């Protein structure tokens, strides 16, 4: 705390000095905690990760992270750019498999199943752990086909009316039904950015996943569209387990029950969202949430 205060003083008197010193001071003056501070584990975890190390080629992106994600909770992963939060998120449904140089170590459990078990069907895993990306990425197909894509793949509907039902339900859950019900046959790419992102959420919940991973879902959207997505996350919590990576601390505070703070590949602090934002225990967490870097 004291170091952070000093840092703050220098910063106020001399902005240029602050710019120059900041990265060093961040790394050197505030030591990392021995173990993650707060409550990284929970009693009834949906997913539990232990000793996670991730490497891109020779450089290590994540160092020994232990974290549980509770059943039907919304957990926010926050931290400065390049801290490994997106990398960590992408490990949870093995999207990192598509990157050749990425190596993942540690144990990842989805309830009783080991995610990185070679015998595990990654296709089935991704049906259970859905993902929403930073930029809305609807397929260049109709709105209906976008939502029906997953159910068709997994044979969730045998008849046309069953599929119609799944599409309608998913769009309703994503709060998009009323806006698009008259133009389901029009291309999904023709929607506005916020609508596209809600379409992507509808698309991922159409396969009834247990966990939904969201990688900065609002970073490409305007404030009104963002508010709608946040509302939607709020409504979905309780039915789905949601892990959301965000750069907006207000967003983390609004939508999540627990917050995990990552710093340069290390998980510094995990606590109830309220605690993290009102009484952070570690100096790095405090420095970040008070906006001193990030």
């Amino acid at each position, binding site marked *: 705390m004291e170091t952070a205060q000093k840092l703050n003083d220098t910063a106020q008197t001399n902005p240029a000095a602050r710019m120059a010193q900041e990265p060093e001071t961040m790394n050197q003056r505030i030591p990392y905690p021995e173990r993650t501070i707060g409550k990284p584990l929970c009693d009834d975890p949906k997913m539990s990760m232990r000793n996670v190390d991730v490497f891109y080629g020779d450089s290590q992106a994540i160092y020994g992270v232990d974290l549980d994600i509770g059943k039907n909770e919304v957990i926010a992963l926050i931290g400065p750019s390049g801290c490994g939060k997106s990398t960590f998120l992408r490990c949870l*449904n093995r*999207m990192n498999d*598509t990157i*050749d140089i990425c190596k993942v170590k540690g144990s990842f459990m989805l309830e009783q199943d080991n995610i990185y078990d070679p015998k595990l069907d990654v*296709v*089935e*895993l*991704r*049906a259970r752990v*859905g*993902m929403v*990306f930073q*930029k809305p*990425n*609807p*397929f*260049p*197909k109709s709105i209906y086909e976008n939502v029906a*894509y*997953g159910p068709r*793949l*997994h044979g969730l509907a045998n008849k046309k009316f069953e599929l119609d039902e799944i599409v309608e339900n998913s769009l309703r859950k994503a709060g998009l039904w009323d806006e698009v019900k008259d133009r389901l046959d029009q291309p999904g*790419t023709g929607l506005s950015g916020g609508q596209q992102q809600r379409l*992507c959420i509808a*698309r*991922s919940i159409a*396969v009834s996943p247990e966990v939904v991973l969201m990688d900065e879902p609002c970073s490409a959207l305007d404030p009104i569209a963002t508010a709608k997505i946040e509302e939607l996350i709020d409504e979905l919590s309780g039915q789905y387990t949601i892990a959301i990576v965000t750069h907006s601390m207000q967003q983390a505070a609004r939508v999540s029950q627990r917050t995990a703070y990552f710093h340069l590949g290390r998980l510094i602090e995990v606590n109830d969202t309220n605690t993290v934002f009102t009484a952070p225990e570690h100096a790095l967490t405090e420095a970040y949430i008070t906006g001193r870097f990030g």
Partner: protein
Amino acid sequence: MQAGNLVLLLIALGAVFYFFGWRRSYAVSAPLGGVRHLHSLPGYYASLAAVWCVLPALALLGLWLIIDDTVIRTNLMASLPSAIQPANEVDYNLLLNQIRNVAGGALNPAFVPAEVVAAAEQLAAMQARNQQMMSIAFVSIAVLGGVWGWSRVQPRLRARQQVESVMKWMLMGSATVAILTTLGIVLSVLFESIRFFQKVSPMEFLFGLQWSPQIALRADQVGATGAFGAVPLFAGTLLISFIAMCVAVPVGLMSAIYLAEYAHRNVRAWAKPILEILAGVPTVVYGFFAALTVAPAIRGFGESMGLTVASESALAAGLVMGIMIIPFISSLADDVITAVPRAMRDGSLALGATQSETIKRVVIPAALPGIMGGILLAVSRAIGETMIVVMAAGLAANLTANPLEAVTTITVQIVTLLVGDQEFDSAKTLAAFALGLMLFIVTLGLNVIALKIVKKYREQYE
């Protein structure tokens, strides 16, 4: 001096004025305290001086070369004694050629009247004087221009902007040359075709089923009345192009998918260039490959199956042409497949699709317009391809859909119509231009459609 030597001299003069311009820009900047007080860098002043030297002189040379022949000819013919004044245009040209040939030493003066020899001597003298005057005018314009450009070097001169606009005009000029050339070719083909259609009706040409472009050279010649129905040629062209596309589209597309989606980076690094080497093989090499290797192999195989196969078959030409076209399709398809954003693939994979499902349901549909554009470009290439079909497809204009028979194509017929000694006003020769026009219209149409499709596709993600 010859025009070529004059241009060489001009380059040297330009270099000299570049140097002087450079020197002068330093000289005028010295009292101001260095080149940074000039409006532009010394290189721009120097370039401007060189430009003033070179461009006006080149313009003069061009104009001179365009008009000098006409001027000399008119003067010469007007000065001829009335005894040999030509009566009509044919005589005029004949006489002119005689005079020229005598002057050029190609015709022995002993064989022509004395007036013609005199005229030839006069022509030689006029040409020599013309050369002389041209050289003097050229060099003086170059030097004057250079001096003018050199004298304009002043600190306030906006040389940088002026060089910029000269560059712009030069680039525009190059583009204009390309466009005008295209226009010229199209118009000449068009006019010759119109002459053809005055002899043979367009209906007969477009819908006639008989192609036999032999015209009687003598009035009493038997069995050579000529038939200009181009349908067998269109059919042959389409048949061979169809066979070629049947080979090229599946192979090209699948190799593109493999290279873009599955191949490891290292494999891609050497496989893609090798595939593109196929596009660099000269078509004449494909041609003899088709004629000497593939066609006999197909005939041998066909005979062993009890089929009659012509030794020059549409199948052989089509297969080899298909191989030639593979790289066009694969590299275009590879480009559009790689252009499908990674986010699309991620979105599909994250929904639990396998890689092949992702390719089938998301990547290919998204890339389809671009792939179609590539295929259309390949079709227009196949229709216009000449060398392979000349060597492997044969000359017989059969109207058939059987790929084992010999057929002929538009391009092959154009070649055979124009090879050898021809009269350029017979329907036989002019037919080549009409065929060329058809070919041009079809390939232009295909290219326009293909480019439209590709462009529309590009806008989708941007």
